[in-house]
């Protein structure tokens, strides 16, 4: 393991964590934006158009590979940091008041990340593995009013199961806490801490952490309750 520089050292691990974290945040913006097209309530036509574009455009498909690599790096790096951090205190305190000096979610990034990962496995199975890699998945759903492949109908089908809706809402809840600490933390890791901007970063971070997971969670709920058709 390197002892200085941009790989392997404690600080390097955090730079990569922050960069991949911010990259995942930008992905969430695109993902949430496109999925929100279901709220046009047009039987999924607008949504299906965008989904088709995302599924076929060469640049987007290339970015998908970069996205997977970024996610894997974030997960592996995060788990390595977590393991090292646990090992750094072999004997714990008999009595400690952690809440007196820090927030529980700041201390629980590893657990929150793992919950997100478990959710992602379920989520990728539902919408990525089945549509891209299992032939015939889309056939029962036919086409939409505009004659496009009907991903919207698959979504409606998946979210007709209340258990799955609950799993998705919990996944979004974990993401909320992960981002509430992670957004600001990423700036600090990269050395971006300045009195003039800290307030804005904190505000933006809290707003993002609330709005994006809430938007995501509203989709399965809205579909289950039949608010979007």
């Amino acid at each position: 393991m390197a002892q200085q520089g941009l790989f392997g050292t404690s600080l390097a691990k955090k730079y990569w964590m922050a960069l991949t974290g911010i990259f995942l945040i930008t992905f969430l913006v695109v993902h949430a934006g496109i999925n929100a097209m279901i709220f046009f309530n047009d039987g999924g036509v607008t949504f299906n158009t965008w989904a088709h574009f995302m599924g076929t455009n060469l640049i987007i498909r290339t970015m998908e590979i970069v996205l997977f690599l970024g996610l894997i790096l974030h997960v592996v790096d995060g788990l390595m940091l977590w393991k090292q951090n646990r090992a750094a205190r072999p004997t714990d305190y008999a009595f400690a008041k952690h809440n007196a000096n820090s927030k529980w979610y700041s201390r629980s990034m590893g657990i929150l990340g793992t919950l997100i990962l478990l959710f992602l496995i379920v989520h990728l199975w539902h919408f990525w593995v089945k549509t891209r890699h299992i032939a015939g998945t889309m056939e029962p759903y036919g086409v939409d009013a505009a004659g496009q492949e009907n991903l919207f109908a698959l979504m409606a089908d998946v979210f007709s199961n209340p258990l799955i809706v609950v799993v998705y809402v919990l996944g979004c809840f974990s993401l909320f806490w992960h981002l509430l600490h992670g957004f600001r933390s990423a700036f600090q890791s990269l050395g971006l801490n300045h009195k003039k901007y800290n307030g804005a970063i904190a505000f933006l971070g809290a707003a993002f952490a609330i709005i994006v997971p809430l938007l995501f969670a509203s989709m399965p709920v809205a579909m289950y309750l039949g608010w979007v058709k």
Partner: protein
Amino acid sequence: MGNMKLTLKIWRQAGPSAKGAMVDYPVTDISEDMSFLEMLDVLNDKLVREGQEPVAFDHDCREGICGACSLFIDGRPHGPSRHITTCQLHMRKFKDGDVIHVEPWRSGSFPIIKDLVVDRGAFDRIQAAGGFVSVNTNGNLVDANAMPIPKPESDKAFDAAACIGCGACVAACPNSSAMLFVAAKVSQYALLPQGRPEAKERALNMVEQMDKEGFGNCSNIGACEIECPKDISLENIARLNREYLGASVAKE
């Protein structure tokens, strides 16, 4: 003499490799004007009279400037108050009948020597790896005031230099990370012109030593800043992150 009665639960460990345990000690006649260390002195006085082994704990200046006194008191480094060391903690912060846990700093990088005394040599080795400026001292010293330094910069450097190396940041951190200490030591030089020539080497070498000592990584949790007796700011950690990034990219 005061009249507080307390129950202390103190970590006792006979030596570095001995097995330790929390042991209960009732203490009486404690005045609220005593410092926490004076209260321990009362306990030790009693233990010695009874022919028992006194509780080993670190202390030196007893006025909040040396950093020797440590102790994880009632679940927090240096006890319940902010911006103080244990020698500055007074018994008026506690109530008659309280049960108070007293533990050593817990970190794999701070091995226990005895009872509440830990070896903070890791900090010395980090400091030796780069926490200095190399100046020629054989007769041609430069007058300190010959180099003008803007007041805001010198204030920030002094704020960072206020770190007393107590280790409360490591003790408080869920990751047992030494980032606040290293950041303070890197910053106090990085902010001054005298420190710039060696800034790259300093950041790289001190972080390398920090990693070698086995401290955890910084998750920006912020417990260190809250528990630091000298109010060292997290801004310093951001500065270390910048210094290290710049040094890693630019170093030949």
